């Protein structure tokens, strides 16, 4: 369970948000909404522990974050491509798994890439793929890395209609399996239910 209370963040002199709080239980997801510059990405970065909060408390399964247990349960996909352009999608997936200390055999990695519609692209350098395909390589991590909490910042950007639907299905499967998700997006998301948080 993720419990956030009294979270505040400022950039320079400007207060972005204050007293943000929510609770996510198993199978629940949160849609963070807000205008450009409202602090959605800042909230996501505070949440995962990349930057410190001015005030507030974030607890994962009752323990304060960031902790190793929290990082083991977390996948964060931000605005960055977070894939190496010189490596192939297959190498990218397997090396990022190895960095996380998880063994990932070639078959499982390949299956994840095929599910994301990258069949036949697994041995090309990521450099030659389109923006949407790069995004799909990154999203394949959702399948290869077991994690209870998905924090996806604008994950639906650059994806075509088919990929948006697929990501919606992946999130729905993840929630049905008892996972949790925090998403930001300007579009209505193809995932049923969910709490909303407007910044």
């Amino acid at each position, binding site marked *: 369970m993720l419990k956030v209370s009294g979270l505040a963040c400022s950039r320079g002199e400007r207060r972005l948000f204050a007293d943000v709080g929510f609770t996510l239980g198993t199978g629940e997801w949160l849609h963070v909404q807000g205008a450009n510059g409202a602090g959605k990405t800042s909230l996501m970065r505070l949440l995962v522990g990349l930057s410190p909060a001015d005030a507030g408390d974030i607890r994962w399964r009752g323990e304060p974050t960031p902790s*190793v247990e929290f990082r*083991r349960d977390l996948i964060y996909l*931000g605005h*960055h491509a977070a894939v190496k352009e010189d490596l192939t999608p297959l190498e990218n997936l397997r*090396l990022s798994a*190895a*960095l*996380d200390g998880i063994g990932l055999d070639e078959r499982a990695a390949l299956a994840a890439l095929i599910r994301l519609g990258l069949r036949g692209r697994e041995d090309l*350098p990521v450099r030659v793929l389109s923006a949407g395909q790069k995004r799909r390589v990154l999203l394949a991590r959702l399948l290869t890395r077991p994690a209870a909490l998905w924090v996806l910042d604008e994950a639906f950007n650059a994806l075509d209609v088919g990929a948006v639907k697929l990501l919606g299905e992946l999130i729905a499967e993840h929630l049905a399996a008892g996972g949790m998700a925090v998403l930001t997006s300007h579009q209505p998301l193809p995932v049923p239910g969910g709490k909303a948080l407007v910044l």
Partner: protein
Amino acid sequence: MNALLATVRRDILLALRRKSEVLTAVFFFVIVTSLFPLGIGPEPLLLKKIAPGILWVAALLATLLGLPRLFAADHVDGTLEQMALSPSPLGLLVAGKILAHWLLCGLPLVLLAPVLGLQFDLDASALGILTLALLLGTPLLSLIGAIGAALTLGVRGGGVLLALLVLPLYIPALIFGAGAVEAHIAGLDVGGHLSLLAAMLVLAAFFAPWATTAALRVALE
């Protein structure tokens, strides 16, 4: 430990896909050290005297050449962010990156030094001491350099700042590294010099990954 080896493997694989970046530093070392004998002319005594200093200064500068890229690419494409959020300790991944930097940049310098030393009329035993001193000294350069690279990450014009920050910290390695070869040529015992280099290396191996990690976390905020 597996995460450390995975980082080393990843960085070496990336370097092999983009060989020019690794070769730049090595060619720089070869060319700079070859320019001195060509410029000074055939004066064996003078060349022998300046050899340790020149080889060491060239090694410092060659190391410095690749340092701004140590974390920059990972920072720009967001993989550094993913490393910071990985369940593996960031310190371990950073140590892996530093080790890979040494294997790609420091080790070739160590292996080339005896060949380049021949141009300065150094005899076999002096070349041996030079190689040994560089073997102890170049990892130290990578370790100290990594702290500077992390501190200047994302700073505009960071390359120059990095040189100003790191070169003064390289002075002890330079003094004892070049000093060992000079002492040997003068017929003195080199144990003290090499022991001090080794001691600095142990100290840096312990503290540098930790300091680099702290600086990277600040850069990521």
